[in-house]
């Protein structure tokens, strides 16, 4: 019995290790994957080190990084000379081939490290400078002029605005330069101002503080916010007279807001907020009860700009244009997705979600080919290059992991359902993609939200099928509301029924006394990492390999 188990276990581990070796060989052949992955990992390690190591303070960040770059460059040069001498002696690489490979790897690491230092040095130095000056900036009250940079974030008792300074602030001889920090304003929830509106603000700057087990200081620092201001005095200029920010972005946000106002004038809560979230990716505040219910049901992502509503959109386009060839449908999906991004005001989180979804569509377009394996790490690299703290952004991690789920878990589930002879379109279109996204995002949600819910898959599978037409009829309803109000009411009534169904399912699940588990701080880390490990191992074991090129790597390993 134990012997049999041992042999079975041995077979499994052999298969997994063979595939892992194959993956390494595969990555080894594609420099772009190597480069992207190494940059992402290196970036995380180096910025963590640069931001947190205190002894750098004494010699100065610029100086220490300069010394490091000098030392690293010297190592390369020295190795290069040594290798050249050896080549002259031996007359070629020959038996030195292995050492040569290590040298190439070492050289790549050093060049990457230098690149990462160069990319990050200036913003980390600026962050350090601001952090050092915090005590002098937060002593007394101050006044400054700035404009509202992003859309306000709603809270239950207030709203939060991110302010971009229009000029440097000087307090007690110290200067806070206008580009070194945004200011987070906490203002009463009923204030009504627009993105780009210029305001004169006065009050006391305060440093943010961590609460409970949430590192709020780092969370804000990743968004370049080092100061908050509670209930400041604000006097804003009219947007018709003066407005800052990007014209097209302001225009799109205004357009979106005017359309959302129309929804608010027809639908009640939570239906209006749900529809605004589904059609425009607008993050709205729900009542505490409904918010809790969406979390338990695992459907919070539907209304946040996580890429889920973009998935619904692509499903919708696919269904409307069923008569067209598959390739055309997928191209139309990409066009629809970017139209959605524009309508949503091109906010960073929506653009990210749309980019991720476009990638998964490209993956579907090209089937199981190499392109997705290259495109995914390369896109992640571009994100990290543009925003070095992207890996700390939950939205980025969720979007990325759900795409990974569609690329690497969905084929496994599809194959299993074929083996089990399950030939239902409903299962294929809704259950399996939902299940793969849920599984792939599970480690992230366990790690970040410290909760595990078993309801995510059934609730999503029940809701997703109706959301396609909710999106369609909701959009039609908004478009014709001013011209044909009665017809729009017909569309809205359908949307209202569907969203009542959404609300009903979510509230029903909330009443079930089991299925949702809260984890402690350390438990969530252990469970999150264990889940990630097991999922990766399962993918290695079960991923269906039909591509001949993959078999080549397996046989070579």
């Amino acid at each position: 019995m134990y012997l049999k188990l041992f042999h079975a276990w041995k077979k499994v581990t052999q298969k997994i290790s063979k595939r892992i070796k194959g993956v390494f060989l595969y990555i080894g052949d594609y420099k772009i994957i190597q480069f992207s992955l190494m940059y992402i990992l290196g970036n995380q390690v180096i910025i963590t080190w640069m931001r947190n190591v205190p002894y750098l303070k004494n010699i100065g960040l610029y100086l220490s990084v300069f010394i490091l770059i000098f030392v690293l460059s010297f190592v390369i040069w020295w190795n290069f000379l040594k290798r050249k001498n050896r080549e002259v002696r031996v007359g070629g690489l020959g038996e030195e081939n292995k050492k040569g490979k290590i040298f190439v790897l070492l050289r790549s690491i050093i060049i990457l490290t230098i690149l990462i230092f160069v990319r990050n040095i200036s913003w980390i130095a600026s962050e350090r400078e601001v952090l050092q000056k915090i005590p002098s900036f937060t002593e007394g009250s101050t006044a400054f002029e700035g404009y509202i940079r992003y859309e306000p974030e709603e809270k239950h008792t207030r709203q939060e605005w991110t302010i971009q300074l229009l000029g440097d602030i000087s307090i007690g001889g110290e200067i806070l330069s206008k580009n070194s920090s945004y200011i987070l304003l906490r203002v009463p929830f009923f204030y009504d101002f627009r993105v780009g509106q210029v305001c004169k603000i006065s009050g006391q700057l305060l440093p943010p503080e961590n609460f409970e087990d949430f590192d709020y200081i780092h969370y804000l620092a990743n968004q370049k916010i080092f100061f908050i201001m509670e209930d400041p005095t604000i006097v804003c200029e009219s947007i018709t007279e003066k407005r800052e920010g990007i014209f097209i972005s302001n225009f799109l946000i205004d357009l979106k807001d005017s359309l959302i106002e129309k929804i608010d004038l027809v639908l009640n809560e939570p239906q209006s907020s749900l529809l605004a979230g589904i059609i425009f990716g607008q993050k709205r505040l729900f009542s505490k009860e409904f918010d809790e219910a969406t979390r338990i049901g695992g459907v919070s992502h539907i209304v946040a700009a996580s890429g889920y509503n973009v998935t619904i959109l692509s499903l919708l386009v696919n269904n409307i244009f069923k008569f067209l060839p598959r390739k055309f449908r997928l191209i139309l999906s990409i066009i629809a997705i970017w139209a959605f991004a524009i309508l949503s005001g091109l906010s960073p989180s929506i653009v990210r979600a749309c980019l991720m979804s476009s990638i998964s569509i490209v993956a579907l377009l090209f089937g199981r080919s190499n392109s997705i394996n290259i495109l995914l790490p390369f896109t992640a690299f571009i994100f990290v290059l543009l925003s070095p703290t992207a890996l700390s952004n939950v939205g980025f991690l969720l979007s990325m992991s759900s795409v990974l789920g569609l690329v690497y878990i969905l084929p496994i589930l599809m194959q299993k359902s074929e083996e089990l002879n399950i030939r239902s379109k409903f299962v294929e279109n809704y259950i399996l993609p939902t299940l793969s996204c849920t599984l792939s995002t599970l480690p992230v949600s366990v790690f970040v939200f410290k909760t595990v819910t078993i309801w995510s898959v059934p609730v999503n599978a029940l809701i997703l099928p109706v959301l396609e037409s909710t999106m369609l009829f909701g959009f039609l309803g908004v478009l014709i509301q001013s011209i044909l109000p009665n017809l729009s009411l017909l569309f809205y009534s359908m949307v209202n029924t569907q969203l009542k169904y959404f609300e009903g399912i979510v509230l029903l699940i909330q009443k079930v006394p089991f299925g949702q588990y809260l984890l402690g701080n350390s438990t969530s880390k252990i469970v999150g990492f264990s889940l990630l490990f097991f999922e990766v191992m399962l993918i290695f074991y079960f991923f269906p390999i039909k591509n001949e090129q993959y078999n080549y790597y397996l046989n070579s390993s």
Partner: protein
Amino acid sequence: MNSTITILTVAKKILLDNILNILSFIFSLVFVVVLSKRTVNSPEIVFLDVGQGDAVLIQQDNYQILIDGGPDDSILYELAKYMPWFDKRIEKLVLTHPHDDHLNGLLLLLKKYEINEILYSNVEYPNLGYEYLVKNYKGILQDVKAGYSFTYRDIFFSVIYPFDEERSQEENLNNESVVTFLVINGYKILLMGDAEVEVEKKLLDYEILESIDILKVGHHCSRSSTSESFLSFTQPEIAICLCGKGNSFGHPHYETLEKFKNENVQYFITSEEGNVEFSF
């Protein structure tokens, strides 16, 4: 024959693929054709559970009067349970006094509903929300005093406090509350806002009060409201306490509930009962 089978197969496939959408479409049609005709024909009053704050909805047909908006966005969710979904207009909003637990939700409503008129008592009170309301909604604000009244079908609405001469003499803002007296289909309802015993005494002294059926108890059933003389004079059948679960003030106070028991008044507390609804 073959083509018939193909058509049937395709039809079956379309039906099965879109079963949920088809069902919701049918429901929606029913909704539009039948249920949209649903208006609240007989008048009703709902004491809304909005946490620690006040919100009372009175409606008939598609005509709504809302007294106070509660402390936060709960009002948006509670109203949605009673108002027809396509009706986003509130004919009259009443702000009894500008404390946050009466005002905040009302400010949110102004963004999400069309409001015809806001009835309030013009008092001086340093509150950002109140200042915002007075500055930005001047056009629809109407300052009301005792004697103001109107009738809509079966609903008679009147303001019985504050008296004009008493304006802004009170140090306690609760005692500046707009007190309303309603008669709905013959049932008498007294809504006290946050008015305390001093106001009750004045109302008794001026002989304005009479026996009533329902009392919205003043100041969330705090001990500072509902004197014995007030209760024995008005003799309500039912008293309603609008309080939030686990509120820091300890409302409803034990002493007030004891008075109800002594006077044989049946009482409902929204933190325990949820929304309390009466149809007439």
